[in-house]
């Protein structure tokens, strides 16, 4: 399968790989997917308490090239956004940016799910 240059760049040099301290109240963690399905994404955000903006985002992903690139891109887009802005990130924007082929659209859906799950975790900690 021929992938776009942007996708390959995110795959070869993924941004924001790592782990945030999930015990902190300012950190929200989303873990989506299943090993049996061939992809698991863990996406984390850290919110600045004063400004309410996402000041850091990290991911680790088990999956194909598209899944890794989608999560790398998602963390890039999350940084500097407010929670409400982050919730507007749509999977189709990821599809477009990375030129994902139709069979890989589920990777972008997984990334959107991971964002929503991380935000839900953050909100439940700070409710």
């Amino acid at each position, binding site marked *: 399968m021929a992938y776009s240059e942007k996708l390959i760049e995110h795959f070869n040099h993924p941004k924001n790989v790592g782990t945030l301290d999930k015990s902190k109240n300012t950190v929200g963690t989303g873990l*989506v997917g299943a*090993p*049996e399905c*061939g992809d*698991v994404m863990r996406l984390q955000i850290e919110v600045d308490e004063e400004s309410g903006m996402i000041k850091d985002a990290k991911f*680790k992903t*088990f999956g*194909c090239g598209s*899944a*890794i690139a989608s999560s790398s891109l998602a963390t890039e887009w999350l940084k500097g956004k407010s929670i409400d802005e982050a919730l507007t990130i749509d999977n189709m924007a990821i599809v477009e940016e990375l030129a994902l082929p139709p069979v890989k659209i589920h990777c972008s859906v997984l990334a959107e799910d991971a964002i929503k799950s991380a935000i839900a975790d953050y909100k439940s900690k700070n409710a």
Partner: protein
Amino acid sequence: MGSQKLIYLDNNSTTPCDPRAVEAMLPFFYQTPGNAASRNHPFGWQAEEAVDYAREQIGNLLAVDSKEIIFTSGATEADNLGIKGVFEMYSRKGNHIITLKTEHKAVLDACKKVEKMGGEVTYLDVKRDGLVDLAALEAAITDKTVLISIMWANNETGVIQPMKEIGELCEKHGVLFMSDATQVVGKIKTHPKELGIHLMAFTAHKMYGPKGVGALFVNRKNPRVKVTSQIDGGGHERGMRSGTLNVPGIVGFGKAAEIAMQEMDADAARLSVLRDKLENAFKDTLEEVYVNGNVEHRMPHVTNISFKHVEGEGLMMTFNQTIAVSSGSACTSASLEPSYVLIALGLGDDLAHSSLRFSLGKFTTEEEIDQTIAMISKGVNHMRDLSPIWEMFKEGVDLDAVEWSEH
């Protein structure tokens, strides 16, 4: 991509054509253009002579009479001819066929067609090491069984089935025995008559011959086996397969068979050393590496390895600009399902997604294997650094106890 030489470790998909086979084929494209079925002029005679010679070269490799070789377009067609051809020819005797869940799609899909045509097919499970359960095979035989079709060696794992024992079972119950021998002919000794095999499908392009030509061995005596033709028009190949013969392809096929006869033992010995070096390097330097399938009854040039907690397609992307292998991961298949062969071995989906198949060939060098070990080990470590389940595994989390959000 740079000037780095590509490394081809996907020889179970197809092999490069041996330059000596290409050399033998060339005159038959232009200088000697005849149709082997033209009986009344020198062009036809020359073509027929070349085809007869190739048939003998292939017959010699299999230790069978050259008249028992029916040329086809490849192994898929040969599998179809064997299965559907026996089903139709022996319909008065019975309508039941037994095969394995781990067979190639050419066999499985031909069997599905037989079911649509009113036949009954038993698809047997294999044991965890990929071998057929002989007791289950015997138990599946009924008085309606006309054919048992079991591949000699599996394309994904290289696991070799107990052909002699299966042949004895077929003999005992008076059932025809067919084998898809695509992955073994020209690689190890394949003498069907010694093992009671009545029909055997194989192809040139897996044994350093050209693409587009294969054959079905059909036993002529004790018993005399016949198959109903699946392609009609002209009655070539003793009425079993019509169509103008692919003369250059057949000549190349014959030459490849002759070369195999001389060189396959030495190639097999050399490749098994390289294969073991590759496999052991991964097992010794990486954690959580699993070799899939029986390792004692296995083709010398194949290994199928799961690198746990790493997804196969992603892993391949770390090196596929340089190294060609294949994966059982869903993401590399059109169906988006992980390898049905590995699933049939009882591997979890997660291990199937994590598998790579390495198939070496006669042109593989030790230097290439060393480079492969280095690049793929680096790729596995890189992907594990990216993998949340690897991190959880290292932290001692019981991954089976995690409630995953399946999608």
